[in-house]
């Protein structure tokens, strides 16, 4: 079997030659183990996802939201996956694959720290040495996740180039890989990078829609009218959409971070958003042709979002293709709406979502009357990691739904957590 390297015009393998052999070896392993279930790889993957990860995860009927929107809203609870986000589906798959391939070491990049913690957990579980690259700025912003990775026995290496966030961490991990490629596997954190990563990560994440498709038919008696997921790189997105792509009547919306504005500052090289699907231009970054936030010369922009996990200038090539095809709607929601949605879901449903996830609920709030009668929203992760950010960002704003946090101030320790 030989898989297509591209999705329409997107995808491909734009990497330094030193990585090409590893990518070919990985492609071969992907086809054998993942696609053909050689040596029962996929069986073991599913078994570990169940026993270690906690799958299957519920599709919860959201009572308050359904009433609020007069629409049946279902929550896919990826926040309940071990580690607190969908990221483990992919990390576990890749670390296991690395083991089947005889690799001796794992590296990964991380932005918000969710992919890093998932990889560190999977590596500890499967007894693989692991090193995580993380921007210095992100290390400062996401200390609990740094601690979790170290606690799981991983090395965490600060990346000091550029702004010190996800983009730089990916670049740095690719540099490590270029050196250690013979015995090291690079566990990329989303459906990005050179082939076979976008396809392989999607396949590992597709367990989400595999479950949803069955669950929604059982609970609602039919397929949904709309499926919503936030999109950074797009792994939870493609995971949630995959088994619905052929169901033409199911609307698929990828909700990106609109940040503070969709306008860009070309001079400063800054896009105050991460809406690469909605506003980006085709280009080549981190191994794939896809939609990017870039200036007119092709230099990559610094993206921005209140949610670190969406803060990336690129997006998965398959999503870019599905958007061009008209199969997936690329939409976005700004920081304020995401914060409001964060508070609303927490108060109304008792589920504290990740800030990334909150974007999908911000979109639901704004467009619920266009989405039909049965809507599935993927709760890609839990918000525990975001408490500090939400506290700070909420205090800067005048949001309708925010709780009064004065008890935190009054009992000392300042306004922080």
């Amino acid at each position: 079997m030989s898989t297509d390297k591209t999705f329409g015009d997107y995808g491909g393998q734009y990497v330094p030659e030193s990585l090409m052999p590893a990518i070919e070896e990985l492609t071969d392993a992907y086809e054998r183990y993942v696609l053909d279930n050689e040596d029962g790889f996929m069986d073991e993957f599913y078994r570990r996802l169940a026993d270690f990860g906690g799958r299957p995860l519920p599709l919860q009927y959201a009572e308050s939201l359904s009433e609020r929107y007069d629409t049946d809203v279902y929550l896919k609870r990826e926040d309940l996956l071990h580690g607190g986000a969908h990221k483990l589906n992919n990390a576990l798959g890749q670390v296991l694959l690395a083991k089947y391939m005889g690799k001796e070491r794992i590296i990964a990049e991380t932005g918000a720290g969710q992919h890093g913690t998932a990889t560190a957990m999977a590596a500890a579980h499967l007894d693989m040495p692991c090193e995580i690259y993380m921007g210095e700025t992100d290390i400062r912003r996401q200390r609990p996740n740094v601690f979790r990775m170290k606690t799981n026995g991983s090395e965490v290496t600060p990346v000091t180039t550029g702004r010190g966030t996800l983009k730089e961490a990916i670049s740095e991990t690719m540099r490590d890989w270029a050196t250690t490629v013979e015995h090291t596997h690079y566990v990329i954190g989303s459906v990005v990078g050179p082939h076979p990563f976008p396809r392989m990560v999607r396949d590992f994440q597709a367990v989400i829609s595999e479950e949803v498709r069955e669950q929604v038919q059982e609970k609602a008696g039919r397929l949904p009218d709309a499926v919503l997921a936030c999109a950074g790189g797009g792994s939870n997105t493609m995971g949630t959409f995959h088994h619905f792509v052929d169901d033409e009547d199911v609307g698929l919306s990828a909700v990106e971070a609109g940040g503070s504005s969709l306008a860009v500052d070309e001079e400063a090289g800054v896009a105050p958003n991460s809406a690469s699907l909605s506003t980006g231009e085709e280009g080549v970054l981190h191994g794939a042709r896809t939609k990017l936030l870039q200036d007119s010369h092709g230099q990559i922009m610094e993206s921005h979002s209140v949610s670190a996990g969406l803060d990336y200038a690129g997006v998965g090539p398959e999503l870019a293709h599905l958007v061009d095809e008209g199969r997936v709607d690329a939409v976005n929601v700004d920081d304020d709406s995401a914060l409001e949605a964060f508070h609303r879901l927490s108060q109304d449903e008792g589920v504290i979502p990740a800030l990334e996830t909150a974007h999908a609920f911000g979109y639901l709030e704004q467009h619920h009357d266009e989405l039909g009668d049965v809507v599935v929203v993927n709760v890609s992760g839990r918000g525990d990691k975001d408490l500090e950010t939400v506290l700070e960002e909420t205090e800067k704003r005048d949001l309708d739904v925010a709780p009064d946090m004065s008890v935190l101030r009054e009992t000392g320790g300042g306004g922080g957590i």
Partner: protein
Amino acid sequence: MGLERVFADEPAFVPYVAAGDPSYEESLEYVEALERGGADVIELGLPFSEPIAEGSTIQGAVVRSLEAGMTPERYFAFVEDLDVGVPLVCMTYYNLVYQYTHPETGETGPRAFARRAAEAGIEGFVVVDLPAEEAGPLREACDEFGQDLVFIIAPTTRGDRLDRMREHVSGYVYVQARLGVTGARDDVSGQTEASLARVADWDVPKAVGFGIKTGDHAERIVAAGADGVIVGSALVDIVAEGHEEGQPTAEVVQRLESKARELKQGALAGARARAGVDGS
């Protein structure tokens, strides 16, 4: 196609610097100094914001150049402003090629880029993240405009891949001396000879790069069979030091020129050694 020509008589010294590092004006002088020091071809970097194959030295050069305002258009102006006689190769990443819009024709993409480069006098390209498999459009443009597309052979490149690249390469083959990213090292990699052996029967010149720092390294690599040595970080280190310590441009020029001379002499010594061995 013509880059082969510079390897014909003696081992070539192929320096790399980033255009516009640390400023447009200084950089012009530095490139010219390299020629005076003995460069046979110059790989002139067009900086990209995500230099995934570079070590910290060249990352620094990229940042300085971009902060000083480098763009593809200014790069071509820079090439036109340069007063050097040796051939120039544009070293960059694919997105800049892919995004390029020709200022006159309005055409975009690889062909537009190659055309503008040809107009400015660029004779070849090394596009770091463009493996042979994805190189079709640029390859065609190079053919059209008479330019060489240089590929890198990594220590991991073997078997089928090697054969495929042999078909596509022209000008010279860039033999990566070791795994990893660019950066000057204190030793010569043991992988160099093995890599050279794998391309021994190719009919393009073999230039070895990655980690070469001294005349002695250059000598040993040429003695091992290379037709040229590519040196980047060791030169960029001089530019960086000059910039950070506020050295006068003339002093940096002087140091670059003498470093270039050391490397070129090393390469020549390597050729003599090889000739001696071959002759014995």
